[in-house]
């Protein structure tokens, strides 16, 4: 991933590291490495999804009740923001392959802005959770919230707390991945501005793109699982 960017060894092609025979080999290695890293990430989130599914089956009513406390409009907006950012990432890769410098820089800037937009909206949502005492821990409150579809049945606060625990761990880790992604893209922007990427050599950009799409896809799963459990009022 970072391994192919700097180089001091070979004079004829500054991007080719000494231990690779050809540029193609180097590019293929980086790409395979990134895919394997993403497989690791899938398992990382997989453990969480597994915990989520078990408790959702066990405490479906409470999960539905707690889910309704989220604002699906904000979540939906964030989904659109991320999809747009994926588009700008694709544009950036497309631009660099065709040597369109202005489009490349513009797309990268837009991606970063959209990334911050996402985090901002997420921050607004987190703040709301704090105000409503929906943050798990000593101050957690979830009294007298009815379970949708079960008149008269109140959600068990402990079980709702498990929902919010998973909500915070899952979205928190996702947000952490976003922050790392934004950091990476800031560096990519810097490198692109210095003219480091050419139509021949743009592996870091491709890798960054793969990573960014992966983080998007995680959100595509998180959004319905967390926000859209049961919208019947």
């Amino acid at each position, binding site marked *: 991933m970072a391994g192919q960017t700097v180089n001091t060894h070979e004079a004829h092609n500054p991007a080719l590291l000494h*231990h690779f025979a050809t540029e193609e080999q180097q590019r293929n290695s980086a790409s395979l*490495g990134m895919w*394997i890293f993403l497989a690791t990430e899938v*398992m*990382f989130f997989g453990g969480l999804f597994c915990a989520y599914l*078990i408790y959702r089956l066990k405490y479906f009513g409470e999960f539905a009740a707690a889910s309704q406390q989220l604002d699906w409009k904000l979540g939906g907006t964030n989904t659109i923001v991320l999809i747009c950012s994926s588009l700008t990432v694709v544009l950036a890769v497309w631009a660099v392959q065709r040597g369109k410098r202005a489009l490349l820089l513009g797309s990268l800037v837009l991606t970063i802005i959209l990334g911050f937009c996402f985090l901002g909206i997420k921050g607004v949502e987190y703040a709301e959770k704090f105000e409503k005492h929906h943050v798990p821990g*000593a101050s957690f409150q979830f009294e007298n919230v009815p379970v949708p579809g079960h008149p008269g049945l109140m959600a068990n606060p402990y079980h709702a707390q498990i929902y919010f625990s998973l909500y915070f761990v899952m979205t928190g880790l996702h947000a952490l991945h976003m922050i790392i992604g934004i950091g990476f893209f800031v560096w990519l922007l810097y490198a692109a501005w210095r003219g480091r990427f050419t139509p021949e050599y743009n592996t870091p950009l491709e890798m960054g793109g793969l990573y960014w799409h992966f983080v998007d896809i995680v959100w595509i799963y998180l959004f319905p699982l967390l926000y859209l459990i049961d919208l019947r009022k």
Partner: protein
Amino acid sequence: MATATVQPVERTNYINAKYGPWSWLTTTDHKRIALLYLLSVTFFFFIGGFFALLIRLELLTPQGDLVQADTYNKLFTMHGMVMVFFFLIPVVPAVLGNFLVPIMIGAKDLAFPRINLLSWYLYIIAGLLITHCMLTGGVDTGWTFYTPFSTAFTNTKIIEAGLAAFVAGFSSIFTGLNFIVTIHRMRAPGMTWSRLPLFIWAHYATSIIQILGTPVVAITIILVAAERLFHLGIFDPKLGGDPLLFQHLFWFYSHPAVYIMILPSMGIISEIIACFSRKRIFGYNFVALSSIAIAVLGFLVWAHHMFVAGISLYAALIFSFLTYFVGVPSAIKVFNWTATLYKGSIRYDAPMLYAFGFLGLFTIGGLTGLFLASLGINVHVTDTYFVVAHFHYIMVGGVLMAYLGGIHFWWPKISGRMYPEGWARLSALVVFIGFNLTFFPQFILGYVGMPRRYYQYPPEFQVLNILSTAGSTVLGIGYLLPMTYLLWSMRYGKPAPDNPWNAAGLEWKISSPPTTFNFEEEPVVTWEAYNYEEIDAPHKEEDPSPGS
């Protein structure tokens, strides 16, 4: 072959290419990183071994008189954590694998040399964390961290120890990632998959487990830490959580982790047996694919650690059934190694003695696994010393025997010096005897009912415990010996020729020790793995070896 016996004064090699600590701490040479790992895992091995010795001393008498109960609990926890996360998991891949994987496939380095260095630094950060944790009180949950004890009851340093395991886990993931990419993308021309040494196949299978299993334990550690900090309730039955979910998530990694430890060792054994029988490994394809089979099946059997934990009857039946499937590829390997000896031309050099020791201990360890996989027996012997004996036979008997065999086998290549053969044979014998004396009585101890993690015990168990403690001192000497004479050999050992064993494999076609980029020019492989027939053929004696 014979051309390499005369050594010039001091050839440039990876060790003397640069000088100074800084050149080591910033190196991206896979061989130097392997040596950094060698030093650090050896350090942690002796830390863990010291704890083990204290545990054995405490168990000399039925009363708890050497240390306090609390201290004892911390001792076995830290012993387990240090040995599992800081020794057994990294030892073979990060030391021998790091050194040999690129050379064996004809590459100049791993695909991502800097990620390789990063993985060592992560290991060191994790090591510092666990050392700090040990010095400031340690953890008393057992290395398994079972909830709700770890999340809601103990007041020891769970989060710090968990963080150490988390960071060490990422070190392991990066090693696995590097190996997979290297094996896929960096093979020399002609090095097809069916020509790969079995050592490489074993490491490939190991890497699959590392990249797919480790992240699951990482997320589990995050949940445990979050639960401790914020009382989330995910694993706490008082808050609606399920403590068994932790066990499922934990063993989903920690069972395959056993194969992270043993698979690379099996790779070493294949290399040694082939070389010292002067034969191609019997059933190469089956041995290679059985590694992959173990890696895949290893993910399907985790709940066999939980037969009495309160899982459903049917879940227990399925997991017991699947466990027997893992037994088959392991059995295939043992049978094939044995069959390789048939009509061989067998030499008893120290590495081969270690390999014989491995076969003995692994066979016993594997067969006692059948006992544990059987539901009826498992109920009685799980969580007793029977389990302790079983996994030590595999993880210590198997892994350490193979590792020591491998270190001796490749020592000429790594250090450029020969080890003292007589001492090495002696230590192989001492380790084998000491090991059996230490752990065999524990099988009996387990079946008569002594639970594990007991710091005091009913007096009728004493004699067997004394036997075990006596054995552990022999074992301790057996482990100290190689360290001493290998260090000695670095200065006083006979300079090693390029191929002291007349062995097959690319690593023996380059100088001992290798130069920084391993190969002067890219090798082209035109021969099958373990081509001992060609190597030993009398008429070819005068020819230069096919690769050089």
